[in-house]
């Protein structure tokens, strides 16, 4: 079930109404059953995969808590192997098999193993990582093992963040399922506002820009360097609004029910540096990698700077691989990690803050960081490495040709318009947070804001029910 479908609107109204009508002791059951329904609406049989990991990690958590010493570690390892095993089997088997076939072919051998043909369980990388964070936190002693199976299952399956995050931590969410939540007008309205802005980002900005991006990226050989640059930056906006729009809808719907989920995006395009962008982009994933992979490695590396920087690149390579079983994602991850390391070295060695004022540092940093991450996006979006390299070449040699404006060309104005809308809103949110539209205390301004946003959604939103990009991960 997609958030941007009428089916979800009906589902949400029914579940939320029942949630507040039911006594607190039955609410977890309602949420669990509705989450199962939500998940099974995609491909029902895959609920078994989810159930398998839930059972494994539920018992792993209890066994880890009860054990000590090497045994404790052994249970953690078993749980991680089971989770990674499932992820590896469903997501990466064909990737590795294809690469083995390619390598064998170079030596005139044929790979006897054929690819598996099945569709990737939706949101597999998200709920696998969320499940792993539970056993790791229990192992670290930051979370008590959950004895109530239904509550643990709900932690993994809570429908707003089940298929595309935010990837939660148990100590942030589990206790909230035990707390009785009252219907609070102010909280519900705040949640609805977040949902509204999420829908705006998805329907008006992301899906609108996707028309141009898809037209160009599906035919990169026919387009000029100028067009490919524009499409690449449009894709930056598109993926940001697609994913942060989803996160907003997830966070907003959970908030309405009184469950606070972690922030996932914080206006990354205005960060002012590459590091800043990654500190504001997909926070739940990058803090996951930081907490569970980087920090243990960094502890071992002590203060060896080369090692620490190489771990940064490693984290980004892993995050690229997490996104998809394709070399384009791995290159994207590597590029992102290297650009971050380059920025750190440059800042440490050159110390530009000595020569440039703070304001100019911010302006130039924003432009450079936006451009570098924008260019890296082309690897993320390109259909193959070959296409990505061709696009790079076309951009850097400024391949001649007219600027493609979409078909019909008047659509180009829509793309510009929605990009300007996004930047304007984010500039206000970042630098003039006191200026509010739908958060304004004045009722006339507030309602004007609501009507304006809804009118724009109706007038220029795209209602083709397109899937969120991050569902595929």
């Amino acid at each position, binding site marked *: 079930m997609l958030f941007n479908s009428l089916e979800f609107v009906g589902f949400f109204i029914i579940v939320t109404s029942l949630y507040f009508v039911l006594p607190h002791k039955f609410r977890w059951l309602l949420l669990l059953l509705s989450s199962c329904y939500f998940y099974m609406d995609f491909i029902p049989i895959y609920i078994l995969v989810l159930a398998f990991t839930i059972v494994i990690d539920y018992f792993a958590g209890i066994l880890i808590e009860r054990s000590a010493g090497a045994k404790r570690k052994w249970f953690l390892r078993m749980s991680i192997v089971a989770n990674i095993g499932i992820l590896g089997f469903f997501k990466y088997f064909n990737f590795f098999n294809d690469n083995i076939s390619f390598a064998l072919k170079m030596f005139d051998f044929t790979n006897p193993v054929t690819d598996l043909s099945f569709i990737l369980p939706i949101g597999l990388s998200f709920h696998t990582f969320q499940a792993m964070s539970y056993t790791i936190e229990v192992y670290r002693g930051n979370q008590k093992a959950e004895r109530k199976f239904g509550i643990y299952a709900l932690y993994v399956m809570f429908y707003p963040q089940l298929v595309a995050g935010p990837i939660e931590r148990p100590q942030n969410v589990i206790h909230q399922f035990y707390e009785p939540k*009252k219907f609070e007008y102010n909280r519900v309205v705040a949640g609805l506002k977040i949902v509204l802005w999420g829908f705006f980002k998805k329907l008006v900005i992301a899906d609108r820009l996707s028309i141009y991006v898809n037209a160009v990226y599906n*035919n990169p050989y026919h387009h000029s360097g100028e067009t490919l640059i524009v499409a690449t930056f449009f894709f930056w906006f598109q993926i940001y609004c697609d994913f942060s729009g989803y996160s907003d809808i997830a966070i907003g719907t959970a908030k309405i029910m009184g469950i606070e989920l972690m922030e996932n995006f914080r206006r990354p395009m205005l960060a002012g540096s590459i590091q800043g962008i990654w500190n504001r982009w997909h926070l739940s994933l990058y803090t996951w990698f930081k907490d569970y992979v980087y920090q243990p490695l960094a502890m071992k590396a002590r203060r060896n700077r080369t090692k620490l920087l190489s771990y940064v690149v490693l984290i980004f390579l892993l995050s690229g691989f997490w996104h998809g079983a394709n070399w384009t994602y791995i290159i994207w991850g590597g590029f992102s990690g290297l650009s971050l390391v380059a920025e750190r070295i440059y800042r440490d060695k050159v110390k530009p803050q000595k020569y440039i004022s703070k304001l100019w540092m911010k302006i130039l940093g924003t432009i450079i960081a936006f451009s570098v991450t924008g260019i890296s996006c082309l690897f993320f979006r390109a259909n193959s490495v070959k296409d990505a390299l061709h696009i790079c070449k076309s951009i850097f040699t400024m391949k001649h040709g007219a600027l493609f404006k979409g078909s019909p060309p008047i659509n180009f104005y829509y793309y510009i318009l929605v990009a300007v809308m996004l930047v304007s809103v984010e500039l206000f949110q970042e630098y003039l947070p006191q200026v509010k539209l739908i958060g304004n205390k004045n009722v006339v301004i507030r309602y004007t804001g609501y009507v304006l946003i809804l009118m724009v959604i109706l007038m220029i939103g795209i209602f083709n029910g397109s899937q969120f990009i991050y569902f595929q991960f």
Partner: protein
Amino acid sequence: MTKEEVKQVGRLFKKLFILLVLLFVFDRIIGTLLENAYKNAPQGDIKTFAHSITDPTEDIFIYGSSRAVHGYDPEIFTDSLGLSCFNSGRENSNILYHSSILKEMLKKHTPKIIVLDVSAKELTWRSAENSKAVLASMILPYVSRDTSFKNIARQLFPDELRKAEVSKIYAYNSLVLSLAIGKRKMKHTKNLHGYVPLHGNKVRGKIPAFTDDNDKTDPLATQEFEDFVKETKANNILLYVIQSPILVKHFNTSISLDTIRSILTKYNEPFWDYAFDTAFYKKEYFYDNLHLNTTGATLFSEKLVSDIKADIEKNEPQLLNHPQSSK
């Protein structure tokens, strides 16, 4: 739920009700303004569409996508054949759009000749869903006052129809800028009977190769193409299916063209292929690799008209002397 909670739920419903009323009022006001702007739209896609379905009178109608819009000059057809002509092409469209427009037009008027421009990806480049979206954007503004369009919408995109029935603005989704900018741009533009000339030349670099990754045609598009041919045949309309000049590396055929040829053969209709006609295969005749510029369009229209004239004089000489027929 406690009493306090019930009170707060009541407050939420009250506010939501106010918002819904406001939304309804603004939807109707802005929707009516857009409706008027749409009715009075100047030249361009909207006007072309409206003319083709509401008051068609011409003897010759040209159908096709952007390659038709920019490549066929109706004035040349009229000057040479003595028959009135209208270019009913539409950017970004495919056979699903043309077929629906033809069916609607035939309820009011039967032209003598129809020229259908097809591309080598005609039956593959758009999925049925995308084709429907293009058609929906043109049809939805009419569903509230035209039952035949309502029926098409109900058949092809019932969800879109439902949304348009709930919101008046939604029927004009994605048309706001066309109405606002198009009106300003087209205000002083001469009426060229649907033809939109492209000036200049933006062709740079090597001539690209033709690619079509699809290995089969869209079944709906194929069916619509066959229906299009059948409709013209049933109404005794002379049909010319054309592939106009294109500036890509030479290719012989495509899966779409093969299918088109076989359908035309079945109904004994001609297919004229000018794609790589040496008379036009020159950069200076193109705006970009797919579209002729004004020079190219003029030359091509002249050549096509002379070929059509020769064909008519040979096979249907009476056609050039009879007045136009209107239902």
